[in-house]
C-alpha cells in the first residue's frame, strides 16, 4: 500500500505546483487587462483624480510583483483578501456561492452516476436489442442539444405550461432544504441529461470491451449465467475506466453549472467569476480561479487513486 501513498504525495506536490502556476497565470492575465479596476468600478463619469484616489485606496499603485507576493502570503495564511469593488471578504462571497455550485453538481451526480452505470450495464447486457438502440439514440440526442436550450425547454414545459416546478432557482440561505431541493429540480435535470448520456455510453463501451476478453469466454465455459457474468466478472474489471469517466464528468459538472446559472438564475461560482473579470476584481478572480483549479486537480487525483484501488494488479503492486 505504501506505493499508493507515495503516488498520492507525489501527485499532491505536482498539483500544488500546478495551482501556483495557475495563480501566476491569472495574476498576469488580469494585470494585462486594458483599463483597470478603478475605471471598471467608477464607470463612465469618473474624473481623473477620482481614479487616482481609488487606485491609492486599493493599493493598486504598488508594483505588480509586490502585490502578487503579498497576495500569496495572505492566501497562505488563509486570508483570501477583500473584494476590490465592495470590500467584502472574498472568502465569504466565494464560500457561499461555491457551496451552491457543489450542491447542484452533487445533486446531479447522485442521480446521474448510478442511473448511468445501470443503463450502461443494461445496454451492454442486451447488446443490439431494441433497448440498447433506444438508449443509444436518446443518449446521442441528449448530448447533441446545447444544454441551455434543454434548460429553456424544461422551463417552458414544467414551469410555464404545467406550472408544477419553479422556473427560477434563485435559492438563498433563508430557504429550507426541501424548498432548495424543489428549486433545483429543473437545473439538476438539465445538467444531469448531458452527463448521464456521456457516462452511459462510456460504461456500455467499457463493458462491451471486457465482454470480448478471454476470461469472460472462460466464465461462459464454466457455465456461468449472463447476468452473473456482467455483475461478477465484467463490472469489477470495468470499474477503472468507468470511474475515470465519472470523475471527468463530475469535473465538467462543476463547470457546466455556469451556463445553467444564467438560465435558472442560480447563484453559483461561475457568474461571480465572470462578473469579477469584467470588474477587474483581482482577488475574487484569483480566488475563484484557484478554487476551480483545485477542484479539478483533486478530482483527477481521486480518479487515479480509485482506479488503482479497484485494479488488483496495481493495488498489490509492491
Amino acid at each position, binding site marked *: 500500500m505504501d506505493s499508493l501513498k507515495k503516488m498520492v504525495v507525489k501527485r499532491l506536490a*505536482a*498539483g500544488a505546483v*500546478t*495551482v501556483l*502556476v*495557475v495563480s501566476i*497565470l*491569472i495574476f498576469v*492575465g*488580469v494585470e*494585462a*487587462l486594458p483599463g483597470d479596476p478603478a475605471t471598471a468600478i467608477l464607470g463612465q463619469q469618473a474624473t481623473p483624480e477620482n481614479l487616482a484616489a481609488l487606485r491609492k485606496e486599493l493599493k493598486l499603485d504598488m508594483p505588480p510583483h509586490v502585490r502578487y507576493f503579498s497576495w500569496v502570503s495572505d492566501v497562505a495564511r488563509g486570508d483570501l483578501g477583500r473584494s476590490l469593488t465592495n470590500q467584502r471578504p472574498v472568502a465569504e462571497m466565494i464560500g457561499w456561492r461555491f457551496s451552491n455550485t457543489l450542491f447542484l453538481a452533487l445533486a446531479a451526480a447522485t442521480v446521474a452516476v448510478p442511473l448511468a452505470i445501470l443503463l450502461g450495464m443494461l445496454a451492454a447486457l442486451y447488446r443490439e436489442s431494441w433497448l440498447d438502440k433506444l438508449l443509444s439514440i436518446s443518449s*446521442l*440526442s441528449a*448530448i*447533441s*442539444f*446545447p*444544454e*441551455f*436550450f434543454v434548460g*429553456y*425547454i424544461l*422551463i*417552458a414545459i414544467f414551469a*410555464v405550461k404545467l406550472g408544477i416546478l419553479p422556473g427560477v432557482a434563485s435559492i438563498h440561505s433563508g430557504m429550507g432544504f426541501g424548498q432548495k431541493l424543489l428549486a433545483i429540480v429543473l437545473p439538476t435535470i438539465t445538467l444531469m441529461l448531458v452527463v448521464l448520456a456521456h457516462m452511459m455510453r462510456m460504461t456500455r463501451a467499457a463493458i462491451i470491451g471486457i465482454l470480448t476478453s478471454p476470461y469472460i469466454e472462460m466464465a461462459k465455459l464454466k457455465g456461468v449465467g449472463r447476468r452473473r457474468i456482467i455483475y461478477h466478472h465484467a463490472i469489477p474489471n470495468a470499474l477503472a475506466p468507468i470511474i475515470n469517466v465519472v470523475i471527468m464528468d463530475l*469535473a*465538467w459538472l*462543476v*463547470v*457546466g453549472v*455556469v*451556463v445553467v446559472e*444564467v438560465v435558472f438564475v442560480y447563484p453559483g461560482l*461561475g457568474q461571480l*467569476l*465572470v462578473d469579477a*473579470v*469584467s470588474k477587474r476584481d483581482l482577488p475574487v*478572480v484569483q480566488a475563484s*480561479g484557484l478554487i*476551480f*483549479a483545485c477542484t*479539478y*486537480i483533486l478530482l483527477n487525483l481521486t480518479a487515479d487513486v480509485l482506479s488503482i484501488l479497484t485494479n488488483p494488479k496495481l493495488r498489490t503492486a509492491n
Partner: protein
Amino acid sequence: MQFLRTLRQTTISARIGMAMVLITLLAAILAPVIAPYEEAEVVADVWLPPGDGHLLGTDQLGRDLFTRMVYGARNTIAIALLITCLAFLVGVVGGLLAATMRGWVDMLLSRIVDVVMAFPALILSLMVLSIMGASIPVLIIVISLLDATKVYRLARALAMDIEVMEFVEAARLSGEGTWWIITKEILPNALPALIAEFGLRFCFIFLFISALSFLGLGIQPPAADWGSMVRDNAGAISFDMMTPLWPAGAIAFLTIGINLVVDWFLHRSAQIRAR
C-alpha cells in the same frame, strides 16, 4: 470505385448520418444561393410563425429565419471547422513529437498541457474572451489552443502505442530519421483514430461555441450563428413559439449526423485491425 465499395458496406445508421451531414454542408455552401434574403436584412415583423413567404418564420429582429439558419450554418460550421483543424494541427504535431522525441520535449509539453487542463476550458475561455474582446480571431485562437490539449493527449497516447511496434524499431535500426518515422511510420497508423476523434472534437467545439454565444461571448451579431440565434430567440419558447427550436434542432441534427458517421468509421477501422 473503392469508395463505392465501402459505401455499400455501410450500415443504415451510417448512411442516415452521412445524409444529415451532407444536407447541412450543402446548406452552408449554397447559403447565398438558397437564402431568399440578405444575411442581416430586416424583412418583416418579429417572430412571425412559418408561412407566407417565410419558410420558418422570422427571428427576434424580424429577419427571415430560414436565411439566418442557412448563413448561420455557414458561419458556425466554417469557424468550428477552422478551430478543429487548428487544434488538430497543434495537438497532433505536439503529441507525435513528444512521443517520438521523449526526454525534455515530452516533459515540457506534457507539463504545459497539464497546467492548461487543470483549468476548466469554459471558464478560461470566458475570462480570455471577456478580456480580449470576443472577435472571431481571438475566439478561434483561444478555443483551438484549449482543445489542442485534448488532441495532444490522444495523439501522444496513439503514437506511444505505435512507437513500440517492431516495424518502428526496424525503421530506427536501419537508420531512418525522426521525421521519416513520424510521417511515414507512425502517422499513417494513427490516422483512423485521429479522423474519428476529429469528428467528435468538431461536435464538442460546435457545442462549445454555442455555449459561448449563449453567454454573449461567442460569434458577435450581426453575423448569424446558431448558438446566439437560440439565445436571442429563447424568449419565444415560453410563448409557445417554435423559433429557437430550429437553430437548436440544427445543432443537434449535425452533431447526431457526425456521431453516427464516426461510430460507423470507428467500427470499420476496428474491424480492419482485428482481421
